[in-house]
């Protein structure tokens, strides 16, 4: 995830995380500090944002295009270093 964040930035693709932990920052900050993660970490304690995105479980991945449209989604493990995901988002980034 962090690697995808670092490597896709140059292609105009951003990676963000949204935690649905009820305890918010207290749960998330130690994990990011320990791992040295710099990927943005947002807090959705009441899960309103997750619900708005149609998330039905975690971990979940949602891909949003330049126009703000939800283009793809996945529940469970997603290989952020895999060619399928990388090619998919790069194609989206190239689309005008």
């Amino acid at each position, binding site marked *: 995830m962090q690697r995808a964040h670092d490597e896709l930035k140059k292609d105009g693709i951003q990676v963000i995380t949204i935690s649905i932990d009820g305890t918010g920052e207290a749960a998330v900050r130690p994990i990011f500090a320990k791992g040295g993660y710099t990927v943005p970490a947002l807090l959705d304690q009441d899960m309103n944002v997750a619900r708005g995105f149609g998330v039905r479980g975690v971990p979940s*991945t949602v891909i949003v295009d330049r126009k703000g449209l939800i*283009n793809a989604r*996945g529940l469970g493990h997603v290989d952020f270093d895999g060619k399928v995901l990388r090619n998919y*988002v790069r194609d989206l980034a190239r689309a005008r």
Partner: protein
Amino acid sequence: LVPVPQPTPMPSFKIPGINGSSGSDADLRNKVTIIRFWASW
């Protein structure tokens, strides 16, 4: 990862982040964004 047959607009949102940061749907405009929803438990 499953492509959505009919892409739908993302919801409007503005939420806090760690270390005093924050994020909103406006930050996602004009960029392709991978959002990872997760929990520590």
